[in-house]
């Protein structure tokens, strides 16, 4: 489903951010991507959502080779992914429901189905009561839930989260983590980049650990399964 094969990634004016990374993320899997700041976690995620292309090696996501991918194909790929960040990236001049609806509007969803879809995901993240609130009126944990709702509204096969709890206190962080677990239980794969070890200890999910751009540990690595698909 997501497959890295001997991936190297060098930024234009930087050293290698990722060295010889190979792994395979399966359908409905929950993965921790851990490592210190600068280890290469965000780089791995950016390669998945085709923000960057590998310098060498190959990245395959849901049948797309991201090397040389066109901008049109990138759009198509991203409609199948959900992405959330540490800083939420909400539009501050739009309400909760407008922020979520935005993701549907700009991808050409029929107007009639937008309302019900938005309400469904807002209910799922527990924010149906705050549909008309603006981001400024919400707590950090609530804002991240809005961002997650927006990521979910296009029914992605995988949710990619880059330090989603980095700006949250422990209580809010645990709430968001619980939400991600629930989402995974419903069949959506989750790739969670974090250096919050509290979360990593709370669940026994596969953990890929990076250090200076190298995978130094992968609790679920199975090279035989890498071969198929």
């Amino acid at each position, binding site marked *: 489903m997501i497959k890295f094969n001997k991936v190297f990634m060098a930024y234009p004016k930087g050293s290698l951010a990722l060295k010889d990374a190979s792994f395979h993320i399966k359908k409905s899997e929950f993965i921790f991507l851990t490592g210190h700041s600068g280890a290469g976690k965000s780089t791995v995620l950016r390669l998945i959502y085709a923000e960057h292309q590998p310098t060498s090696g190959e990245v395959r996501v849901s049948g797309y080779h991201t090397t040389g991918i066109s901008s049109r194909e990138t*759009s198509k790929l*991203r409609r199948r992914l959900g*992405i959330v960040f540490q800083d939420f990236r909400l*539009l501050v*001049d739009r309400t909760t429901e407008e922020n979520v609806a935005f*993701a549907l*509007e700009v*991808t*050409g969803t029929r107007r009639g189905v937008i309302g019900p879809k938005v309400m469904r995901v807002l209910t799922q993240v527990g924010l149906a009561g705050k549909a008309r609130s603006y981001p400024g009126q919400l707590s950090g944990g609530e804002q991240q839930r809005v961002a997650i709702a927006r990521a979910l509204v296009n029914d992605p096969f995988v949710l990619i989260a880059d330090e989603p709890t980095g700006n949250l206190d422990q209580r809010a962080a645990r709430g968001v983590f619980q939400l991600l677990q629930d989402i995974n239980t419903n069949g959506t794969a989750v790739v969670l980049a974090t250096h919050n070890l509290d979360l990593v200890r709370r669940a026994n999910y596969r953990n890929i650990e990076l250090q200076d751009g190298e995978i130094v540990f992968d609790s679920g690595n199975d090279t035989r399964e890498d071969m198929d698909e």
Partner: protein
Amino acid sequence: MRLIFREVFLSFRRTPSLSALSIITIAFALFVVGLFGLVAVNLRLALADIEERVEIVMYLRRGTPRAAAVAARADIRSFPEVESVEYVTADAALERARSELVEFRDVFGDLVTNPLPASLEIRLKPGFRDGQNVALVAQRLTGFRFTDDVRFGREWIAKLDRLRDITAAIGLFVGAAFALASVIIIGTTIRMAVIQRASEIAIMRLVGATDGFIRRPFLLEGAIKGALGGLAAVALNFAAHQAVNRTLIETSFFSDAQAGLIVLFGTLLGLLASALSVRKHLRQV
């Protein structure tokens, strides 16, 4: 489509001063171009008026038989450059002199013999009233056996040509300069709009909006601003035209098609400027 119009409307509402500024700058740029256009239009009309009077006079030798003159007239009429040929007999020339030069009526009246020669007056077709063609036709006329003299104000026609060339050149230059200025101004306002909406654009990208979709509202915005600027420019030009008419001289205004062309030009300018700017600045978001 409705969504795009909503986005455009929102962008006007979110940045009213920026939007107004770009419309005003486009309007002003096109207003100045339009002013020049008005001058050119009126100059062209005046020139056409003068050119209308450009003619070649071929004086005939004394004693040229009427039949020869008539035959020559038919011959000259068949020149591709020639619109009309008028045969003015010596008597007719005298008659005309008497009526036109009132002061000398007595002098002419006393004449025993007519001192004026007969002539053929040749008028060229509109496209051939420039110095080069006039000289060419005149050259050909000297070839007739009974031609005494050919007159055609060579200097004068050449000056007219040069004036028209200079007018056209200045028009092109000023027009291009202002077009460039408005492209830069529109480009800058679009750039500011792109920067202002950077977070929106980043999110659009993230959730899988296509580049075309992201670009469209900016292009539409540029086109609408250009069209509004063009309309404002036409209105300003009309006001200027009215003011000149009231205080100075009677002038002509643009035809509807020319006014439409200014609006169309503004629209295309807005579209072009935003296309260039969006293409360049979306990459940086």
